[in-house]
């Protein structure tokens, strides 16, 4: 595949290297030190840093601003962008804003429902969904056009990614859903965290059977447990995604 952007993950993945990304959640305040410290910790260990976008619908410093802080300190950011709270005008505008700092990676997501966040009484937008955001970014980059059809003078040179969940229901559409995202324009995939290796293997087998692994780069997600509380939360919320997890008083055990 010829390179479409100056994205570091794109370059590494095209060269058949592994790429390693990590995540940086922006703070619930305006102190840039939090981001700079995280960037400093991650800088020498990963190829790019995903910056979450008001994760779980909790209001935080914006993903775009945090990406700029990271970019300016020499870290390669991946802008996570959810369609939950912005319409197509704001989304396209933020894509251009991001590209104006030569940030070359975007992960297109729908985003969580606001009932789980700090503004459960708020309106949600969902003018687009994640698939339509993928189409939008690809259209802007490849056709030099806005959704409206108007020309873009300096199109956003972004490597376009999406999430995939090999574990969620209904299971029968897990691989078709990946195919659909590829059809919408996804060039790389970051999976949800994998706590069920057997099901992940099964999913990858079906992905290979359809040749989808030739069409998209797949980065498998790993989330280390930081505490028993976190393990309990994951077990409660996402039981179906987990193989067998026993919670001991210390760390979770995966038999």
């Amino acid at each position, binding site marked *: 595949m010829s390179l479409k952007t100056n994205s570091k993950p794109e370059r590494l993945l095209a060269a058949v290297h592994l790429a390693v990304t990590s995540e940086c959640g922006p703070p619930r305040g305006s102190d840039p030190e939090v981001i700079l410290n995280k960037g400093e910790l991650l800088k020498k260990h990963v190829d790019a840093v995903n910056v979450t976008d008001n994760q779980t619908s909790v209001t935080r410093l914006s993903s775009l601003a945090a990406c700029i802080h990271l970019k300016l300190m020499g870290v390669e950011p991946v802008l996570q962008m959810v369609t*939950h709270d912005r319409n*197509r005008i704001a989304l396209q505008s933020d894509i251009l804003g991001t590209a104006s700092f030569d940030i070359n990676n975007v992960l297109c997501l*729908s985003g*969580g*429902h606001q*009932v*789980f966040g700090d503004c459960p009484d708020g309106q*949600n937008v*969902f*003018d*687009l*969904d*994640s*698939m*339509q955001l993928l*189409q*939008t970014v690809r259209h802007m980059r490849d056709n030099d056009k806005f*959704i409206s059809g108007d020309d873009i003078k300096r199109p956003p040179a972004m490597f376009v990614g999406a*999430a995939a*969940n090999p574990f*969620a*229901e*209904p299971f*029968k*559409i897990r691989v*078709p*859903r990946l*195919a*659909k995202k590829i*059809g*919408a324009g996804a060039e790389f995939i970051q999976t*949800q965290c994998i706590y069920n290796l057997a099901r992940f293997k099964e999913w990858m087998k079906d992905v290979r059977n359809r040749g989808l692994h030739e069409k998209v780069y797949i980065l498998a997600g790993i989330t280390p447990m930081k505490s028993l509380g976190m393990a309990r939360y994951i077990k409660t919320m996402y*039981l*179906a995604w987990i193989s067998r997890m026993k919670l001991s008083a210390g760390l979770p055990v995966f038999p």
Partner: protein
Amino acid sequence: MIVGQQKPIDEIWEMIRGQRQVLVLGCNSCVAVCHQGGTKQAEVLASLLRMQAVQVGVQIQLDVGGIERQCEHEFFNSALDAISNTESVLSLACGVGVQFMAENFHTTPVYPALNTTFLGAVERPGYFTEKCQACGNCVLAATGGLCPIASCAKRLLNGPCGGVSNGKCEINRELDCVWQLIVERLEAFGRLADYEKLFPLKDWSKDRAGGPRTFKVEGFLQ
């Protein structure tokens, strides 16, 4: 049908407590089907308000009436006298009826006794579910006859999201995930492959986003 739900009695009382005379007016179509806004419910509500008035020592005259529909001129004939002789109206119609009255009776305050909740179906007696958001541009042909705009909490046109568990929605475990149902429907008539067809960006200009909507039927227009 339009589904409505009576407001809490305290909220209704606060709206009307300053009035001397109120006509409590039922609407005997949609909101009567859901046992919230018909003449029967207007009678019960007026009784409750009379008790409230006695308890707090307020003088207020509460009359009761009802018409077939508060959203069409022709049904108002039987209530014209009652409306013109009252100081204010507490309407048990949906928001359409309340506004239609407000537009047509310029000097009469009209208060809403109901919260208009949704366009829905009578799933079983006493149980109503939202089915349509009147987006103005029906998508049901592509979604197995089930609407993700009305029935998905994120109105995803290319769903489902990752929040499905045992076929239920993550925001309320009593709600079916409509995308799970859509997938099952498509599979049931051998069209599961259609799931991979991308639903394009929706034209929301036919929806609320395009401003208040009107509809003219040529040949019937007066």
